[in-house]
């Protein structure tokens, strides 16, 4: 009489070992992606899928006229989707015109339980203009000088911001003032350290870096009271031209030095119209301009709306600063820390007063 119960008990114990077989097999995932830039679906855009879960070769496809690309019967895995392609998009400055810009996207897609059950993932990939990805950004440009009648603008500063999740190292990077397009560099100052591989000057994520033309308290200059200027004596870096013996040098602030042969003045930028960019230091041959691959971020600004662009649209599709007034104490800062759509026309706002080392409210 006990034997049937014993057998039932044994079967019950064994059933812990029995696991239910999934209904889906691997290699049956159908992935459809819509590729979008701003409000428009993009056609003829190459899309690449790569997984590090398996040794499978990357999958490639091109978006159709609806902006969709499909990958059928691929393994269930986490995919890195990368897009880098030229696309014809609406101009940032003239809504009736079209521009050719490089759009990029890099995102991960992971199958969910629902997608496994239904065998399909449909998603939209939002591309951004090349240069708009998180990273080291020129976050604020203070160029116009404080209210004064002495043509004083030596309190200029550039504020950088690390909008990425990784620590970025400034070693060997350069900051340039451009003349016309990337082929003509006006000034080029370099951070100390070895470009690309140096690890001496870190910028943690979500950190500001203030680079002063002269790292001093500009509000307290003897015989030149400028109460609406800024105190830059605690700036992080200071532009310094070793060939300019009269250039102020705060011994407590490290320097970026000029590397342009024969140039003997400080890093001064035009008050209401100019281009400033930061590059990774891989291209130090400034005589033939700056390679676009070396550019990390660039900002063009001009005080009047009819300005013709002075930098390639890959670097900045628009320009900010329309309405800037010389010697007004105004500053040009991104709408939010690190916000970048690679279109300075919408990325920047004019502030009444500079905010070195922090973001305006």
């Amino acid at each position, binding site marked *: 009489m006990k034997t049937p119960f014993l057998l039932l008990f044994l079967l019950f114990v*064994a059933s812990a070992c029995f696991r239910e077989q999934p209904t889906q097999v691997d290699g049956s995932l159908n992935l459809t992606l819509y590729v979008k830039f701003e409000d428009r679906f993009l056609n003829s855009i190459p899309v690449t899928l790569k997984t590090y879960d398996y*040794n499978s070769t990357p999958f490639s496809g091109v978006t159709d006229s609806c902006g969709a690309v499909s990958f059928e019967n691929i393994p*269930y895995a986490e995919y890195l989707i990368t897009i880098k392609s030229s696309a014809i998009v609406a101009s940032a400055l003239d809504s009736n015109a079209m521009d050719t810009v490089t759009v990029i996207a890099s995102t991960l897609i992971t*199958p969910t339980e629902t997608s496994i059950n239904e065998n399909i993932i449909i998603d939209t990939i939002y591309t951004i203009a090349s240069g708009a990805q998180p990273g080291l950004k020129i976050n604020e440009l203070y160029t116009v000088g404080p209210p004064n009648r002495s043509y004083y603008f030596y309190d200029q500063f550039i504020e950088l911001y690390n909008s990425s999740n990784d620590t970025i190292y400034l070693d060997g990077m350069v900051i340039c003032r451009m003349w016309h397009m990337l082929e003509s560099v006006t000034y080029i100052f370099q951070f100390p350290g070895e470009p690309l591989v140096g690890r001496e000057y870190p910028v943690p994520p979500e950190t500001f870096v203030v680079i002063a033309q002269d790292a001093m308290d500009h509000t307290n200059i003897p015989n030149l009271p400028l109460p609406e200027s800024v105190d830059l004596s605690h700036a992080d870096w200071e532009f310094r031209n070793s060939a300019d013996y009269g250039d102020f040098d705060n011994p407590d602030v490290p320097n970026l030095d000029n590397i342009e042969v024969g140039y003997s003045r400080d890093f001064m930028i035009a008050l209401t119209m100019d281009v400033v960019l930061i590059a990774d230091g891989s291209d130090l041959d400034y005589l033939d301009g700056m390679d676009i691959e070396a550019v990390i971020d660039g900002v063009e600004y001009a005080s009047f709306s009819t300005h013709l662009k002075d930098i390639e649209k890959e670097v900045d599709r628009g320009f900010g600063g329309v309405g800037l007034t010389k010697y007004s104490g105004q500053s040009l800062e991104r709408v939010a820390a690190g916000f970048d759509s690679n279109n300075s026309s919408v990325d920047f706002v004019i502030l009444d007063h500079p905010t070195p080392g922090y973001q305006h409210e």
Partner: protein
Amino acid sequence: MFLSNLSGYENPLFPDIVIEEPFSSTIQTPMNLYRISFNPALFKISYQEDFVYYRVNSFDKINFYHRVYDPKRQRDYQLYFYTHKTLDKKSTLAAAVRYNRADQYDVYRSLEKSFYNNYFSYIDTTMGNVTYEGPQLWFLYNYSLTNNLLFGFQIDYGIERSLKDVYTKCETVIRNLDLKFGVGFGSNNSNFVAGAFVRYLNYQGQYNAVKELQDAFVRTYFGYHVFRDENPRSLNRKNDYKEGYEFGAQLTRKNILVDGLGIQLSGSYGTRYTDITVGSTSLPGDRGYWIREGYRIFGAVFYQPVESNFMFQLFYEYKDFSDWARAGEYNVVTIENDEVMHRFGSVLYLPLMNKVGVSTGFEMENIRSDYHEYIVEFDYNREHHNWNAFTDFKLAINQITNAHIKGMLGTVEPWFYWNTDKFDIIAFQYGFERLFVFGTLGLEFYYEVWGPENSDKNIETYGLSISYRK
């Protein structure tokens, strides 16, 4: 030749049933119910005389033809002790200890003892020699609850460690437990015996690739074609955990219609799962698990009159199991395999004269394999037809010395990863035993060659065994 049923390292869900007596090459008996079912409750009925057996083995297997991750050469050494003893009218005790050492030479990348026996194998970047060693213990206790009712349990336990002699210190450690409980019923005249058992398997293995001051690069395979490069780290570890159950029942009936005619039947159902995690020791990543589930039926008819040494046996085995593997992070099947095996064979022992006997046997098997990898599609669906035949001359040289010469021919159609359609097998064995006052000493030589159809290179195995029994 050197077969025994210890499963302290690899505990297959359905252990192979071998048709020859494991303890002697000069005795030919029909398979007993214990040997076809491994039910510990039936041991007492199958082996009634006390027995002590020692053996030293050595094999040298030279793989002139080999798969990518096979060693080019393997030397095995075994020290083996086995005994069973009837303690009293009710109790029988059996125990075995085996110490194994296996030296694998020129192992390309693999960190597995047998790369192709796993669906989730593990390799690194090194080529070197690996030494595996460790003991296996086996213990069996059989007790008569009443005159007819038997109870038995059996424990297999083994520990094995290995080290690869390369800069990446590749170590493996396994621990294996195989427990079996059985009950049996024997009729008063011993013509009818029936039994049932339940078996529990538990296996734990660790495969470590260690590099100090550098990172060890390892890969985990999913099947035989797709792999994943694991994150390099100074210690990369694969954890392999198996657990399983088997339930079986069996019966034998002797002296049916005529004296010496009998039948045996055995069947079992089993399931086992294998969990695989890989990566760091503290937070290993889930790489999936696989399940094997199936059943086996074995039947034999034998004829061995009591008054004669003549023996004839026919047997048939049916094995049907299926595997499926699940991906680590997603609830999908990555591998499926269905295998159905039909095996049929016979053994005849014919005493020719008083001093000479010949034992001859034949078996053929048909295995249908339906194997699928789904991550990157790979399908393999094929029938394998294998056969082998042997003839064994057994000669009583004098009253205290026996000798035997055995030859075997066969073919095996291997799986796709062998890159050949067929192996032709030739084996030769020569051995003799001499009775001394302290017991029987035996010596055996063994040579086996596997020749692939499409290559001049062979797999050659040489063996030497010295045994002592009483």
